[in-house]
């Protein structure tokens, strides 16, 4: 049975190993799609609707086409068609320089007949609201209703009940590198695209369908990419446009989204509003849960969320629906549906615990059947110093008040089939590992090197890892669902093991022993039964003569496992004069199985916490009911955490077994509830609407006073 072996036997796996691409990234040597410049490159830009809802009456591209330096102008809509959100594509231009392209956009004449619009959920659901989608009746989707147990009976058993409304606004992905592509045709029948994507093969397959090319005549390259978070699975309109413009002009074309477009059209986490009533028994059992909720994914649906979440409720009824608004569509975003669900559930849990006069952690223990999280509660509470929290919320003295809170989360991350990989040992001792995955930032490139290096007794830096390229024809799935490592690692491991086996077969006769009696040491191969018999790695590979060893692997399910639990504790300090919330510390206890690289696993936890913190305290897509525009489609008013916001983060890799499990998404989930509950514990007034900004804190404090 395949296994990763004992921890004590691992030289590299599970250790803290510096990211292979780290130095290149911080020195600017790493080439992102943005950095790709090809001979004869043209620059493309897209003209977008500035209004939320309109009918195109006329589109005239001629003046743009006549501008010197413009090579192509491509309509992306036509007279008679509707534009349903700000940012929707009207036309695209490819020109000699980016400046010319930008000037050309301003020469495109488009006559729009503006239509009534709705950009907020409330406006969309109001009586007489304009119809947004032609395929819906009104602006609400049919509700999904789910019922388990007997809710009414549950409430009759409840000693306490809480009724509350929780809201999280739309959050945008804010990929540091905006979406974009460089497209280049060789003749009419071979397309190469450098893409900022989290799914190299997904983009390849999409483009091959779009341009009716055989899959092996499209090559997609993503050596490095600057963040995706779920928003970069396909080429999208901008990718299709880049390839189309390149085809028309017979020149390579670069088309990167502007920061504004990135906010408007490149996806977002939908909003959530929950009206929830829940009850608990006197002894602290969550007994009844009744929730009606909705969210907006803009013009698309998909605004689902988890409710109830993590904790077990015997009797529950939930009803949820989507609200259509004139805004850019949602896309998967780091643990879709979970952070917002966790915020509501963990807030609710604290509200119930308080009514019961129970420690919120104790109340969780009673209602959480997950053994891993039970252990995490103990560890996390110890690390944060849970005993220091205010027994009476808001009871701290002084202007700046401290408080503590806890939140929980869960995720899958067990990986899946569909990865092919090749590990090659060359006669000169060099090693290559090739697969079609991509490094969305989690460090899979380094993880692959670690696995191969461990198998061969080499150093990770000695392994040439080639990923992010469909060229070698070794597919792998998109980096989503925290699936990458658990999908790729078993294939790499089995490929490396197979190559090692082949190498042993070569060397066994020389050492006058059997393959089974051979072992790998650091840079050497030795005979287990007679340790004096050794041969260096290079001597061994030299025996290969002209022939490299190349082996592929398989997704051995014994090497991976799905299902993780996590919990986080937050300590905050609230300035009651300014309403500012400062997070002092987060303890993040994250179950993840075998961490191939402990360092990058911790980095993923840190990143998740920071993203969760941003969603809790800062981030919100602000849509203006007056103009239909997003007012903060920039990084000035759309605020993401910076160095001042980032607290001490104690990331605890909570290994529960020695099988690989993904951990990219789950650490962003428990942060919201932990911080929100800590704010309540600090000031004794609950904020049920994110983000918890000074205006909300001051307003809440004023209401408490009054």
């Amino acid at each position: 049975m395949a296994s990763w072996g004992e921890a004590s036997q691992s030289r590299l796996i599970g250790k803290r190993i510096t990211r292979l691409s780290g130095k290149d990234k911080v020195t600017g040597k790493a080439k992102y799609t943005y950095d790709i410049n090809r001979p004869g490159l043209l620059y493309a830009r897209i003209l977008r609707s500035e209004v939320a809802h309109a009918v195109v009456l006329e589109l005239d591209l001629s003046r743009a086409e006549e501008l010197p330096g413009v090579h192509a102008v491509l309509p992306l809509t036509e007279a008679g068609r509707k534009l349903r959100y700000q940012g929707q594509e009207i036309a695209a231009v490819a020109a000699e320089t980016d400046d010319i392209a930008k000037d050309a956009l301003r020469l495109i004449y488009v006559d729009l007949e503006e239509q009534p619009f709705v950009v907020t959920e409330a406006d969309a659901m109001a009586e007489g609201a304009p119809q947004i989608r032609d395929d819906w009746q009104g602006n609400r989707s049919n509700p999904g209703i789910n019922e388990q147990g007997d809710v009414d009976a549950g409430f009759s058993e409840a000693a306490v009940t809480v009724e509350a409304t929780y809201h999280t606004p739309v959050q945008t992905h804010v990929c540091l590198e905006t979406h974009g592509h460089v497209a280049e045709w060789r003749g009419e029948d071979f397309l190469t695209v450098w893409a900022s994507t989290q799914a190299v093969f997904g983009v390849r397959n999409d483009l091959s369908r779009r341009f009716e090319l055989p899959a092996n005549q499209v090559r997609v390259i993503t050596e490095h990419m600057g963040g995706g978070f779920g928003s970069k699975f396909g080429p999208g309109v901008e990718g299709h446009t880049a390839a189309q413009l390149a085809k028309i002009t017979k020149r390579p074309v670069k088309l990167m989204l502007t920061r504004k477009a990135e906010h408007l059209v490149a996806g977002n986490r939908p909003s959530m509003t929950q009206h929830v009533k829940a009850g608990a028994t006197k002894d602290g059992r969550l007994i009844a849960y009744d929730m009606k909720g909705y969210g907006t994914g803009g013009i698309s649906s998909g605004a689902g969320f988890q409710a109830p979440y993590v904790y077990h409720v015997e009797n529950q009824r939930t009803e949820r629906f989507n609200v259509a608004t004139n805004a850019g569509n949602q896309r998967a975003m780091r643990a879709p549906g979970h952070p917002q669900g966790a915020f509501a559930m963990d807030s609710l849990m604290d509200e119930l615990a308080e009514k019961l006069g129970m420690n919120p952690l104790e109340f969780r223990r009673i209602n959480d059947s997950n053994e891993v999280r039970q252990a995490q509660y103990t560890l996390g509470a110890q690390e944060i110093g849970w005993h220091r929290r205010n027994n009476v919320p808001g009871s701290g003295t002084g202007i700046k008040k401290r408080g503590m809170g806890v939140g929980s989360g869960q995720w899958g991350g067990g990986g899946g089939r569909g990865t092919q990989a090749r590990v090659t040992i060359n006669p000169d001792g060099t090693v290559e590992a090739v697969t079609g995955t991509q490094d969305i930032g989690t460090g899979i490139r380094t993880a692959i090197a670690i696995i191969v290096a461990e198998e061969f007794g080499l150093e990770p830096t000695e392994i040439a890892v080639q990923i992010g390229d469909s060229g070698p024809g070794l597919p792998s799935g998109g980096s989503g669902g925290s699936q990458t490592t658990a999908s790729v690692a078993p294939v790499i491991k089995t490929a490396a093991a197979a190559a090692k086996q082949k190498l042993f077969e070569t060397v066994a006769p020389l050492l006058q022993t059997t393959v089974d009696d051979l072992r790998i040491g650091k840079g050497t191969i030795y005979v287990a039964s007679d340790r004096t018999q050794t041969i260096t790695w290079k001597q061994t590979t030299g025996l290969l003569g002209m022939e490299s060893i190349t082996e592929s692997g398989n997704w051995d399910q014994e090497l991976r496992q799905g299902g993780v639990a996590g919990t986080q504790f937050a300590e905050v300090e609230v300035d009651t004069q300014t309403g500012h919330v400062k997070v002092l510390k987060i303890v993040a206890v994250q179950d993840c199985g075998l961490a191939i690289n402990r360092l990058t696993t911790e980095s993923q936890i840190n990143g998740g916490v920071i993203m969760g913190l941003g969603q809790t305290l800062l981030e919100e897509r602000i849509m203006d009911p007056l103009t239909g525009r997003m007012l903060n489609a920039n990084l000035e008013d759309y605020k993401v955490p910076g160095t001042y916001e980032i607290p001490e983060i104690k990331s605890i890799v909570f290994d529960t077994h020695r099988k690989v499990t993904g951990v990219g998404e789950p650490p962003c989930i428990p942060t919201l509830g932990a911080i929100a509950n800590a704010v309540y514990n600090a000031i004794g007034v609950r904020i049920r609407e994110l983000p918890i900004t000074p205006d909300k804190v001051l307003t809440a404090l004023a209401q408490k006073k009054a």
Partner: protein
Amino acid sequence: MDTFSYVNATSLKQVTSLLSDSEWGEVMLIAGGTDLLSELKEYIETPKTLINLKTLPGMDSISSDTSGLKIGALTTVAEIAMHPTIQQHYTVLAQAAASVATPQIRNVGTLGGNLCQRPRCWYYRDETVNCLKKGGDICYAVDGLSKYHAILGGDPVYIVHPSDIAPALIALNATLKITGPDGDKTMKVEEFFTLPSANPFRENVLEPNEIVVEVEVPKPKPNTKSLYLKAREKGAPDFALASVAGVFEMNGKTCQSANVVLGGVAPAPWRSAEAETVLTGKTINDSISMKAGEEAVKDAQPLADNEYKVTLTQNLISRAAMMAVN
């Protein structure tokens, strides 16, 4: 941005004459460019010519003597923030400068540019929204979203003045030297700024052919305590939700005179005579400092989304006053 020609300034005379010979907005001045460039990129301004002031000699230094400070308009925000004399004797100014944006912006942004920067209002900064400040009919903040807008002096344009340095300079009784085609003139920094009721399109009284060349700050008395408090949503970079520049002449716990100037709450830096009156001659304690805050905002007229700024401003003033004695 639109194409423009770029002229390196050789003398103030040349600059003022180029400005005089052009229509309003056709020729614009650039120093650090941290504000102007984003206006150009967003087509908020579309000048035909930019004059680079950085080539003007002798306008980028700080000198100090017993009577006070002279700071050239081309001095960077970072130089002001890090100047030892300013940190020690003009603390409010050093703190205000240090609170501006990010190190990168402070390293290139200049004093003159900071004083003459344009509003951050999200309607104003959107090319496609023709708001009152840009010659349209309405201030969108009135019926739109107004979280970051004015609570004092707004009518009819509810922008807030974004400068941190301006409130500090006003609190220090600083004066500006301005050069025009007819020579130099000086005015109080306080008089430099103007409210939308007087001119909805501009934030100051600079004539189209004038340029700010220097700021002069009288030296505060030795018994002065000065400080700058800035409330913001995010540590950096972020503009003030509200800020207070406080300069207090103290005799023990008694405030002999107080200068209290607010940022982030009005279309111009807002001197709070009300707070100053409450504090002057009083022993500073909790109740006096709270009274100062209350008086300062008693005429505040918040919009739909910024009532919190009233409380915030009040609290910041109280805090500033208490910090004068602690």
